[in-house]
């Protein structure tokens, strides 16, 4: 396998769009030709060599080509987009769309990945050793055809909207999953080894979801049908099997209704890291000491909502909504 090493040489001012970092594009190209490939930053076009030093040349085909990014690519989008073969290894983080529309080959990200990784994937393997954010393995906006095949493995936690509109393939999550897992799924298999926050399998038509660490809040439109033993990583475990989503249409095979299934481990224990910061409805409130400090800071003045909001953010690190701030000002006045 021919290996091309990309070493980040300059931090981009904004974010780089580099769908050309792909074995399919590098195949058959010399080091110089690879360096001349375009990357985009906003409305400007640059060369790959403006941001990376390039060593090595592409293989004869995609399958013969391996790309190693030897540093952080946390501001680089679209790495491995649409690739059909070969390998990419990133020794750091990646930004959005890593492996988007991937059809084959293998991507390994040693760090974290941002959102939209592996969207509309049809084949290959995408592996993220850290955490990933939202819409992993989801469909593109509006498309009812989501992930069709391939494997996505996230060792850490994932955000929300993972596996939306999934039709096939496997998503294996080592940590916790935030809300809206496998929404509208019509096939495919998902394993969550940690805790799933909620709205698992919402509006699901078909598919299998295994949650080993438990679901914080099950959908009321799933019914517990039976207990079943199943094997995960060669180990037999007992699961409570839920059928649903009962609010959704379902097909039939041989007279039997085909439901989506959620397998919740009967003795669930979170595996690996603790649940990451799952964003949900959290009403932030100032404590008495903070309110007093606020009142003192603006004593005798007639501050605008904006001024008070900025002060609260700068001093306490809370982002209050303008309505809340307005009521706070009224309360302090009294």
């Amino acid at each position, binding site marked *: 396998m021919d290996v091309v090493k990309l070493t980040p040489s300059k931090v981009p001012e904004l974010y780089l769009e580099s769908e050309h970092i792909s074995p399919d594009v590098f195949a058959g190209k010399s080091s110089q030709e690879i360096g001349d490939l375009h990357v985009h930053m906003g409305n400007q076009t640059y060369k790959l060599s403006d941001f990376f030093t390039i060593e090595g040349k592409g293989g004869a085909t995609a399958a013969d080509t391996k790309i190693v990014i030897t540093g952080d690519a946390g501001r680089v989008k679209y790495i491995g987009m649409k690739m059909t073969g070969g390998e990419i290894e990133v020794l750091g983080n990646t930004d959005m769309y890593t492996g988007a529309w991937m059809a084959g080959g293998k991507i390994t990200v040693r760090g974290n990945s941002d959102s939209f990784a592996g969207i509309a994937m049809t084949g290959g393997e995408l592996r993220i050793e850290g955490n990933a954010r939202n819409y992993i393995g989801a469909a*593109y906006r509006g498309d009812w055809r989501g992930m069709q095949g391939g494997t996505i493995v996230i060792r850490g936690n994932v955000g929300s909207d993972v596996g939306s509109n999934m039709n096939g393939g496997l998503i294996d999550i080592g940590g916790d999953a935030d809300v809206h897992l496998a929404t509208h799924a019509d096939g495919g298999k998902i394993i969550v080894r940690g805790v799933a926050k909620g709205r698992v399998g919402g509006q699901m038509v078909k598919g299998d979801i295994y949650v080993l660490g438990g679901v914080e809040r099950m959908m009321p439109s799933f019914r517990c049908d039976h207990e079943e033993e199943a094997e995960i990583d060669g180990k037999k475990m007992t699961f409570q099997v839920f059928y649903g989503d009962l609010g959704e249409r379902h097909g039939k095979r041989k007279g039997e209704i085909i439901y989506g299934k959620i397998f919740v481990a009967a003795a669930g224990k979170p595996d690996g890291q603790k649940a990451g910061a799952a964003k949900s409805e959290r009403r932030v409130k100032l404590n008495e000491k903070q309110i007093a400090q606020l009142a003192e800071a603006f004593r005798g003045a007639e501050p605008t909502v904006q001024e008070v909001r900025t002060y609260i953010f700068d001093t306490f690190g809370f982002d209050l909504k303008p309505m809340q701030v307005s009521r706070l000002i009224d309360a302090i006045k009294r």
Partner: protein
Amino acid sequence: MSEYIIKNGTVYDPKTGVKGEVKDICVKDGKIVEKVSSKAKSLDAKGKSVMAGAVEVHAHVAGPKVNEGRNYRPEDKLFSYKPGGKNTRMSGGFSIPTTFKTGYEYARMGYTTVMEAAMPPLYARHVHEEIKDTPIIDEGAFPVFGNNWFVFEYLKNNEMDNVMAYISWLLKTTRGYAIKIVNPGGSEAWGWGENCNTIHDPVPYFDITPAEIMKGLLTANEKMGLPHSIHVHTNNLGNPGNYETTLDTFKLSQGIKATNKFGREQVLHHTHVQFHSYGGDSWATFESKAKDVMDYVNANKNMTMDLGCVTLDETTTMTADGPFEHHLTTLNHLKWANVDVELETSSGIVPYVYDPNIKVCAIQWAIGLELALYAKDPMRVFVTTDHPNAGPFTRYPRIFKWLMSNASRQEMLKGFKNSDKVIAATDLASLDREITLYELAQMTRAGPAKSLGLESMYGGLAPGMEADVAVYDFDEGKVASPEDIEKAFSSAEYVIKSGTLVVDHGEIVSNGNKRTLWVDAKVPVNSQVERDVQMKFLKYYSVNLNNYEVSDHYVPNPYVIEVDTN
């Protein structure tokens, strides 16, 4: 203004009866002329085919449901978007192109006039905003009348003068071109979740039948002498066995003569007939009834039709036949958008994948072509895909290929997964007719222009007509493969619109100065209708009467066709 001479092209012009003769075409001051001065710019058309600019008689290209289609299908724009150029804005959308793309792509294919098939009057301003943003092509829009509460009441009471006054008022208020009728009565019934599946099913509460609505509007149209006839999408679209409803509809017009001063000879134009030519009584027994339908069309010279050919693509269906779209989503479970419009109409949108491996889709494909191949008079049968319902208009060149090459059709038939079943349910395998280029010119230029009452302006190359000319790199005598047909008609060598060169070797070189056509039909003052209109706006509409009319600045370059109905 500019002078052009298109030299040595092989001309196909039904208007002047030129059938593939080498002839020069001269353009001056926006019109076709007999001859030009030596200063005229010469365009070399040697070995190439020359025709008038094509006329699109029915497409959904501007308005609320088209835009809802665009906005709710981001996936329709994935990976096919084109950046703008020297004379063009960026353009995208495969089945529902943006307005800029619509103008550019029609122009590149040599289409110079396009009719927006259905305009809901309450949303007319939106339709005109989109028409304004569609470059190059002249356009008009058909307001829908077939589910209109005023029309129901006047026709129920046989008040012909009143319905004519209302039609005149609505055409003016919406800056509309013709009377469009979609699923008459059924889209009002859909306001309660119901439908009219035959032309004799009465509309709930209004107690008038689709047959009465269509007959009444047909009578009014002829009494008024409007440029186009009624333009009908009848009931029961899309259902196996619906060809009977279609023939019942056609027969409403039987024996009636057209009256107008525009050269129009038909009293009924039925659109996308493919969707209405189904036999059988279920999807299992689904079959083509194209022959039965065309037997009537061939025998009755007072009607015209357009095909609605299926292109076997993933596309988006959208129509003012609201109940049909609901039915479609129950079949394919894809996202369904619907808007019911107070007092006027309803509409629906559902994506659809015409998969050639599905028997029904392949039969639909065959039916569209059979209708054309059975046609005895190409001046009365026009090429459309009911864009985007049966396929995007950018596929017209592919349809031309199928019509003109039997080999390409047979190859398609053999390649279907359910080839045997498709062949058994249709006649296409045994139809070896190949439409000639002259006939194609009749079906895409002269015929549509005449049916719209525009034969003095468009669809022909007679001196005095609009200088809308298309030159294709195509020689009928030297066709190496059917693909040559599709390639040539996808991208014209030259297109001149109203005397301005707009396309040069497939590139847009000018945005022209498009016009909006609308019909001002003058009727005697009718205070009854004025009062009715005021009353209904006061009591039932959600906007005020004074805010309903489309003001002139939404139609910045109008071409008004005045009709004195007296």
